[in-house]
């Protein structure tokens, strides 16, 4: 599948001396990784080549408090306010469609691309953000780029690329009840390591993957980068087409039929060879929680912090305030973050609300619920999910990246344990000294109720 999408986008083939010139079908942009690229274009007198293939949103440094988004209250971080302003200026000057702070279509860049139906099978999609791998869930070749490359795409709609190797992740059987896509991808990263995917495009395949919804597939592909992979992909199928059919910017009428015919040819041919492959039996998995300072330091929720011994491992445990042999399910929780491009979609909020309904947050626990987009927020409110979170004692916010990386001032205090549905537990990621435990929305909700890491299967949700 990767090779088919690659071959379809080669403008100039690669040689031993030069990389391929690869055409990009969709360029998603946001306020943090674009300002220096526009400066470069301006200094060279260059224009945006394809406004029709470029979209801008605001997500990373934007506030989530309603009064700051809609009430005219100033953005707390002055430089963030300037950055947001700069994107407005750049978008106007270069003619980019922008969803500004108050736009009802705004949201995290990787949530809104699929929501709009701009993310489609067989497309090449890039963004100055590593979690662009999310869009691979639709059978697109999607990857994160740096700011210099953002400039390349703005000016030429192309990138210079060397073809990556292929890595099949075969997931057999079916995820057991109470075990989620987040648990599966954490288990995969735990197995292949945080650099296990370096140089590869992953293809997640097998019966367990085919059973997943689009939201779940996006969670899986989203975290491909946490294994170091260039991209992650899942073959488009009826589930993909069904999702896209209802989206506003998917092809319509005859164009839809033509697209379907094209998309149906994308899946990897039977007998195709991958450069590397592993097998995982989904039926053996349980909920997973990280205990360290990268997503590969992960253990089953009924397990314990493993004994190891190297200096980096010891440093990570010291940072986390945990000891080898300590049961994972015993770790206290002070803070809960539900949201991000990994788990900020409607189904994630539903799954957490199903656990939380009728319960209160444990004493001293703070919980922030940040929908992935304004559209997710509206849909959740229409179902009354906001009320479930509010009744439990959680805060219900406007959309954005928020506490996943704390750029906007939504931070976890030093030393606090934060169970988070986001994607990175790096030192200081959620705030200086913050201790992040990555988990599924269900596990985060169950842990919020008990005030310690809790197996969500202890809460029957029927």
């Amino acid at each position, binding site marked *: 599948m990767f090779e088919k999408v690659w071959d379809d986008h080669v*403008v100039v083939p690669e040689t031993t001396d030069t990389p391929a010139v690869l055409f990009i079908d969709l360029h998603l942009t946001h306020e943090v990784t674009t300002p220096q690229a526009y400066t470069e274009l301006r200094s060279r007198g260059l224009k945006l080549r394809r406004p029709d293939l470029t979209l801008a949103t605001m997500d990373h440094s934007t506030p989530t408090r309603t009064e700051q988004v809609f009430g005219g209250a100033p953005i707390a971080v002055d430089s963030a306010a300037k950055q947001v302003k700069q994107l407005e200026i750049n978008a106007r000057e270069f003619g980019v469609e922008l969803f500004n702070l108050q736009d009802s279509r705004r949201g995290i860049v990787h949530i809104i691309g699929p929501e709009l139906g701009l993310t489609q099978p067989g497309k090449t999609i890039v963004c100055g953000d590593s979690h662009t791998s999310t869009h691979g869930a639709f059978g697109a070749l999607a990857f994160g780029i740096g700011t210099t490359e953002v400039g390349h795409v703005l000016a030429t709609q192309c990138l210079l690329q060397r073809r990556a190797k292929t890595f099949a992740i075969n997931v057999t059987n079916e995820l057991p009840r109470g075990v989620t896509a987040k648990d599966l991808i954490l288990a995969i990263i735990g197995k292949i390591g945080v650099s296990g995917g370096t140089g590869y495009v992953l293809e997640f395949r097998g019966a367990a993957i085919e059973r997943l919804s689009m939201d779940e597939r996006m969670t899986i592909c989203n975290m491909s980068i946490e294994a170091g992979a260039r991209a992650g992909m899942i073959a488009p199928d009826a589930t993909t087409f069904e999702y896209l059919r209802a989206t506003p910017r998917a092809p319509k009428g005859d164009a839809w039929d033509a697209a379907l015919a094209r998309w149906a040819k994308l899946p990897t041919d039977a007998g195709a060879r991958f450069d590397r492959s592993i097998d995982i039996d989904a039926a053996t998995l349980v909920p997973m929680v990280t205990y360290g300072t990268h997503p590969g330091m992960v253990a089953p929720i009924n397990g314990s912090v493993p004994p190891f011994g190297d200096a980096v491992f010891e440093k990570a445990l010291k940072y986390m305030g945990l000891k080898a042999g300590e049961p994972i399910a015993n770790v206290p929780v002070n803070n809960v973050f539900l949201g991000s491009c990994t788990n900020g979609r409607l189904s994630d909020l539903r799954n957490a609300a199903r656990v939380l309904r009728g319960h209160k947050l444990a004493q001293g626990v703070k919980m922030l619920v940040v929908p992935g987009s304004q559209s997710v927020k509206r849909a959740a409110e229409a179902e009354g999910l906001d009320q479930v979170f509010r009744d439990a004692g959680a805060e219900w916010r406007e959309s954005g990246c928020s506490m996943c990386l704390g750029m906007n001032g939504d931070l976890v205090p030093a030393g606090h344990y934060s169970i988070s549905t986001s994607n990175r537990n790096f030192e200081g990621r959620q705030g200086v000294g913050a201790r992040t435990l990555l988990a599924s929305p269900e596990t985060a909700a169950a842990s919020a109720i008990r005030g310690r890491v809790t197996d969500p299967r202890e809460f029957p949700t029927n």
Partner: protein
Amino acid sequence: MPAVTFIRSHTVALPATNIDTDQIIPARFLTSTSKAGFGKHLFADWRYDSAGNPKPEFALNRPEAKDAHVLVAGRNIGCGSSREHAAWALLDFGIQAVISTEFADIFRTNSLKNGLLPVVVDEPTHAWLLKNPGAEVSIDVEATTLNLPNGTQVKFPLEGFARYCLLNGVDELGYLLSQDIAIRAYEQAHR
């Protein structure tokens, strides 16, 4: 981009594996709209205490690290976020080359685009460099060799086009712009 042909410097070593770009430059410093000035925030949370004072034990703060242009880092340096600010911060601090056994993809690409040289070495060379921080090394981009003070010379992989760009100080945008006819033809065929 200035040409990078030859680097001679003593090294500074950060042996930790999986140093992510959030450590190299924490997110709270990314609200700048310029490429300049990130050096003072390089490794901010490892380099300074909560009061903002330099931690004397941190490798980059030690007197022998002064004017070091070559950073030796543990395996898988630059994982995580795609922020190019990581490469800008290292360059602004004065680092011209990073040596490791493995680089994260996006960080490696970002580094090359800014003239920060990623040097991939084998385990024994890496182990020697970590054991001998401050060693005077030289890196020849033309020959793609790293020379250690003990006389050892090791070849390192460098993609041909990236090497050409480094040696000549040209950036890739010029090359991409020169492909306009091919890009236009592709666009015509895919309307």
